[in-house]
């Protein structure tokens, strides 16, 4: 699908339907609530009100209060209850309102949900999808901007999924809900409404103009563990996910670099084959993420590429990341790994 959509035009063709990422997520939830009686959606403000980002708008009215409901402001309770619901046989889809708020629920995710299958030798499983908006760029300050994905990729038994387009958001979320393992599904909130390019001083494009906003109605799945080729190229490989896919793409376009951009989509399980094939072809690798640098997922990617593709590399692997500070409110764009930081890293890789 993604390769087909790359060639689609900016204008909506007849019969095409372009929606934003919020609508795509809402549709995925609606589809799964309709298909499977065991799916329940819960979280703070997600019921009658429809969620602070509107991802669950209309779902309670359509599916009823016992399938789509508000919860106390208690992330430990939300995820703990979801573990019990999973043990009963439901497929809970809890929302944590911001990824920054997930920490009170970490023990239930790390020690309980992620290990239940293992410790009970598959007698009990925790088939839950924890949805949570993450990432910065919305002036959310240090408690509404974080990208904590590497806390979860480090945990045995958890899957971590991050979509970058409306088409992927819907198909990946459906796969996550059907998956029998616990999944953390981080939604890059900066691109809920449009594919933000990192040029914050330029007008934001809406999803309506983007071919990956063409989203079929009804049910479809995108398999977990498969990366998406955003562009084919020869000069270097760019590994990114979430918002940074679009930023990297815009920078490469602006600089006229023949980059092969991989949107990883799933961090665990990772599409190592796609990464190896691309780096072996280009010989150069840039990793981009918004999260803080030290022990970020980029460190894992860098190690994997170095271990597995060393003799194909023509330059050291480069990481472009957020800085190792809390996300600053007024200096948000100084923190954000934007076009300048990415551009210089590309120059450095290509020079070697």
């Amino acid at each position, binding site marked *: 699908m993604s390769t087909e959509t790359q060639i689609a035009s900016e204008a909506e063709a007849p019969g095409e339907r372009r929606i934003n990422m919020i609508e795509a997520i809402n549709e995925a939830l609606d589809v799964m609530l309709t298909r499977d009686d065991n799916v329940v959606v819960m979280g703070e403000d997600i019921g009658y009100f429809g969620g602070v980002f509107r991802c669950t708008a209309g779902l309670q009215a359509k599916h009823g209060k016992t399938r789509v409901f508000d919860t106390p402001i*208690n992330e430990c*309770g939300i995820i703990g209850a979801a573990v*019990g*619901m999973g043990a*009963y046989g439901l497929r809970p889809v809890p929302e944590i309102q911001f990824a920054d708020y997930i920490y009170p629920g970490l023990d239930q995710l790390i020690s309980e949900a992620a290990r239940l299958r293992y410790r*009970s030798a598959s*007698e009990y499983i925790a088939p839950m999808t924890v949805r949570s908006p993450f990432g910065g760029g919305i002036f959310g300050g240090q408690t509404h901007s974080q990208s904590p994905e590497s806390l979860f990729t480090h945990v045995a038994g958890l899957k971590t999924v991050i979509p970058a387009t409306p088409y992927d958001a819907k198909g990946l979320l459906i796969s996550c809900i059907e*998956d029998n393992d616990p999944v953390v599904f981080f939604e890059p909130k900066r691109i809920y409404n449009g594919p933000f390019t990192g040029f914050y001083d330029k007008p934001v494009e809406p999803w309506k103009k983007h071919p990956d906003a063409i989203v079929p109605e009804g049910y479809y799945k995108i398999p977990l563990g498969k990366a998406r080729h955003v562009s084919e190229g020869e000069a270097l490989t760019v590994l990114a996910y979430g918002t940074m896919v679009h930023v990297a793409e815009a920078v490469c376009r602006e600089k006229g670099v023949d980059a092969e951009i991989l949107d990883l989509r799933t961090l665990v*399980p990772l599409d190592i084959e796609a990464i190896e094939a691309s780096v072996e072809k280009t010989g150069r690798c840039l990793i981009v993420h918004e999260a803080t640098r030290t022990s970020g997922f980029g460190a894992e990617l860098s190690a994997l590429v170095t271990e597995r593709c060393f003799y194909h590399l023509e330059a050291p692997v480069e990481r472009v990341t957020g800085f190792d500070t809390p996300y600053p409110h007024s200096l948000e764009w100084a923190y954000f790994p934007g076009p300048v930081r990415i551009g210089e890293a590309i120059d450095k890789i290509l020079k070697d």
Partner: protein
Amino acid sequence: MADRADTPNTRDGAGGDNRPALALHVPEPRSRPGDPVNFSDFTISEAGVQPRPDESAKPEDMKDLAFDLVRVLGDDNKAHGPWDPKLDPETLRTMLGHMAMVRAFDERMFRGQRQGKTSFYMKCTGEEATSVAASMALASDDMVFPSYRQQGILIARGYPLIEMINQIYSNKGDKLKGRQLPIMYSSREHSFFSISGNLATQTPQAVGWAMASAIKGDSRIAATWVGEGSTAEGDFHSACTFATVYNAPVILNVINNQWAISSFSGFAGGERTTFAARALGYGLAGLRVDGNDALACYAAQQWAANRARANHGPTLIEYFTYRAEGHSTSDDPSGYRSAQEREEWPLGDPVMRLKNHLIAIGEWDEDRQVAMDKACAEEVKATTKEAEKNGILGHGLHHPFRTMFEDVFEDLPWHLKEQAEQATHERITKFGSERPDA
């Protein structure tokens, strides 16, 4: 600029101003090793005098029961008052039999650990009624989310002893593939949730299970057990909040056995109020029960089960009991509490009290008790021998090596496949290719 000397210095502590110096209270238990024990300040109400409200009662209309102690068995060994569950003698003998079996099992497994057959064991001596009698008041398919000292539930539900021992030995017969610390059982067939080992995490999970049962219009309820020390965990308060918000069909059993390893109940707030009183702030029904009185334990659990099953809501029950032994085989209570406490515990021993009740009503005698205890010990001994054929911890008869990588996920992703290959390679390097899977 104000003159700094004119500003009262609130950081100066005692003497900095004329306000009294603050003092930090650090709780201290009533007795330490070697101290005499005095329980004279314990108010233990008479058996049979506590009212039994209707199961639909509002929590605020039964407040006193969160501070009193529901008791049925009196000093005369007879059952008294409205909480008497009026169980037939056969059921009482079954209950006594399960409790005797738990005690025999604990004795044998404790010794097994001392003999090096496993790494760890936890007895529940003195607390048998809180799991055996309480769980007998539930339906066999009601879901239980236990803590680590509720082996009585499995025995009451007929879980085979050999499965328990295989798990304790982490041997090749262990259904949990040797992954869990001994006594962290799991049995879906017996509606017994996998024991975590982390404290109080099971409590919001029990509420979630109960919510699911209610969402589905099922008739099964959930019950969870947690120690009084662990009620200090945030998870317990999450559980209480979710339970009350959704009126979940769940029972929150708090086993107040006075000790959390070496920390007495005061470190969970027990000096200020009862654990049952936690219920009131949440709007949950709260009952405080003599945990060494098997009939009271049964009656309270039955009351709460009826309440939950009729959609009248959740109940928090505090079972007031005493941990007669150490926390685990890794613990030595003589290092922090007086040995006399156990001897003089004013609520007696739950097995003896139930036995004496059966004798008092003419349905049991000492000879039968001796014979039963002997039969329990022999059954445990024989089953232990049987289980040892599957191996004991550290003696090679564990699950095949490759199983280490199973069940992390439903399917094996590439990185675990690679690591499994590495592990097999290490195995062959160490032992040769004949037993790569040993």
